[in-house]
């Protein structure tokens, strides 16, 4: 075990996979010589060479397309899109080629591509460095979509993703790279070394797909969330003194429906929280599942906390970000006598 922040944990995952499997290659903008804008791939090109850790042109469509070609021909590429905000040029390649390859070829071809991309706000990044587009990808059949909220899950899930024979979109909430963040920007930053999930095995391990993590057991309501909002939700529930069960979904596809349903059936109350915009967001899908599976156990309408339906703003970031106050309002609404 070692203290790692999320960047170090991700670096460790890729280091291990490069060492274990000669077909694994890393590729992306500034990930090689420079070590990545967030230092996630730092030292890996030096360690494994330019033919294993590739610097690419600033062309996301090309990065994804090249990765698909490499994967079909036997490699196991891990492509980094520097910010999720930049992923759209590669969207056609992801949706039309990557996601459908196994289906279109009747199983003859497959593409074990992992696309890593930092997402989310809270870093004063404005509209071009703060987006949470996971809902766009969860809507695409044929993709697996992950979003860890801590170093332990980040490393375990990334190894699982790389070892998986099908495409995985791997979102990294960048506000959580250096420490758990409870949504209050006025508070001093907390490093991962203070958190249990900052304790990460140095060797190989995996976190399974399709398994949610109950980060806090509770009896009064269930908060379904992932990414940055995990710690915001925990703090909001604590501030109200409610006995909330907080579930970090972490694997959006495949989704751990059993854990969600059994929790909500027990508590009868549910809040769904994510940083992404609300309309047609992934939260709507979770809410729909809860409604379908838990309707007769619901004590109150399901509440949803999300980003506003606007582009991520340059100004008023903390009015936009769905912080503790908004989660608390939703908790109060769902706890209203019913």
């Amino acid at each position: 075990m070692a203290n790692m922040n999320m960047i170090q944990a991700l670096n460790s995952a890729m280091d291990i996979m490069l060492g274990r499997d000669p077909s694994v290659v890393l590729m992306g903008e500034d990930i090689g010589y420079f070590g990545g804008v967030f230092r996630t791939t730092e030292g890996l090109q030096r360690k494994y060479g330019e033919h294993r850790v590739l610097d690419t042109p600033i062309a996301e469509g090309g990065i994804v397309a090249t990765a698909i070609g490499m994967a079909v021909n036997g490699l196991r590429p891990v492509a980094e899109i520097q910010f999720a905000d930049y992923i759209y040029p590669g969207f056609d390649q992801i949706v039309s080629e990557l996601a459908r390859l196994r289906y279109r070829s009747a199983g003859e071809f497959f593409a074990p591509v992992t696309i890593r991309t930092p997402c989310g706000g809270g870093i004063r990044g404005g509209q071009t460095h703060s987006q949470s587009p996971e809902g766009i990808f969860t809507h695409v059949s044929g993709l697996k979509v992950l979003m860890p909220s801590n170093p332990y899950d980040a490393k375990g899930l990334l190894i699982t993703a790389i070892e998986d024979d099908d495409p995985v979109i791997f979102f990294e909430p960048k506000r959580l790279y250096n420490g758990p963040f409870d949504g209050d920007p006025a508070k001093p930053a907390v490093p991962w070394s203070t958190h249990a999930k900052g304790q990460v095995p140095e060797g190989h391990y995996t976190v399974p797909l399709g398994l949610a993590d109950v980060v806090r057991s509770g009896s009064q309501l269930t908060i379904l969330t992932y990414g940055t909002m995990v710690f915001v939700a925990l703090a909001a529930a604590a501030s109200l003194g409610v006995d909330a069960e907080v579930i970090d979904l972490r694997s959006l596809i495949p989704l751990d429906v059993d854990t969600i349903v059994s929790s909500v059936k027990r508590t009868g109350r549910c809040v769904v929280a994510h940083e992404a915009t609300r309309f047609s967001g992934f939260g709507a899908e979770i809410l729909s599942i809860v409604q379908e599976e838990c309707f007769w156990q619901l004590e109150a309408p399901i509440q949803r906390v999300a980003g506003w339906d606007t582009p991520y703003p340059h100004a008023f970031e903390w009015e936009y970000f769905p912080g503790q106050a908004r989660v608390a309002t939703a908790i109060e609404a769902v706890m209203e006598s019913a």
Partner: protein
Amino acid sequence: MSQFVFKMPDLGEGTVEAEIVAWHTAPGAVVKEDEVIVEVMTDKASVEVPAPVSGRVISITGAPGDKVAVGSPLIVFETGAGAAAAAPASPAPGAASEPARSAAASLAPAPSAGGAVPVAGAAARIMTSPANRRRAREAGIDLSTVVGTGPGGRIVREDLLAAAESTVTASAAGATSGAGGAGMSRAAPAQRVEVPAETSETKVIGLRRLIAERMSEAKRTIPHFSYVEEVDVTELEALRAHLNSKLAKGAPTLTYLPLIVTALTRVLESFPQCNVLYDAARGVLIRHRAAHVGIATQTPEGLKVPVVRNAQALGLWALAAEIRRVTERARANKATREELVGSTITITSLGKLGGIASTPIINAPEVAIIGLNKAVDRAVVLQGAVAVRRIMNLSSSFDHRFVDGYDAAAMIQALKELLEHPAMIFIPR
């Protein structure tokens, strides 16, 4: 237009709940302020509750026989301009109250299995959570009979629990079968028992239920012992006849009762352990200097015990008048709660139906009850000769936890001595 939620009022000191006896209105009806809308009963008295406002009735809580806690919503009115006009199809107040009355009246032959009578006109969608809908379905509760106390009139879980509770009570009391509404269990809804035509069912509600509960409680918890003694009331009868002969024409005649009550109050001065209330919760015996004498009274509704307060302080005629007043009010169902509570000892008499001996049940938390049997002329041996004497038996019960047999017997003997020498009743010791 706005809604006015009228809650069960506090009907007297210490009242925590009241039982619905009969509704005089129904959802959809338009009522005027001060019009009687419902008759409720506390643990003793019946009260007619007037409408606090004018308006249209949206919903009512509880069917006859259901208990409603003081402070819980009883009736929801739509008030303000348009309330009356908003219900063009609703019948006139007088007519509207008829279904409620007949519903209450028809309860006896055909009790509903759930206890709660579905109210007419509840057309609006019921607001409650899916979880509560499931609970109601599983408990066999008709949500249209439940009044919501949540935000915006929503039915919340507590409302459902209250409804389930009253369903249980009502169905238990109504001697209907089936497990319906047993708490919030997942038991199947109650199944109606096929009732042969030769029988009829009567829901045990109202005063009858109260009597049943109190009798069971008293008989179950109090170790009764009864003591019967013969009293020669020949002289008492002579005194009574003499007093009655002096009465103005048309004045009510004197019965034995005021004479016996007066004698009893004298005796209690020497036997204070019989003029006691037992506070079981605190394990304390409360000895009373004053004698508040309960007079067991048969009324059209059933047994009631109106109270003559400070009987020891009243002269014979005042006492007679007061006994007459409280028993008549009880018979006319006009007694207030205050007139029906607070007795410290009770006298029970069946008059001409008095029989030879009886074993009265103590009116808890009292510790003694004096029963009067029928006075008849008997042949008795008096100074070696057979004589015709007017004989009345006293059949009394005591709480053996607190009254020893010796004291009880001594007390009855003291009473016997006064009654056999009636002048002694009025001569200070």
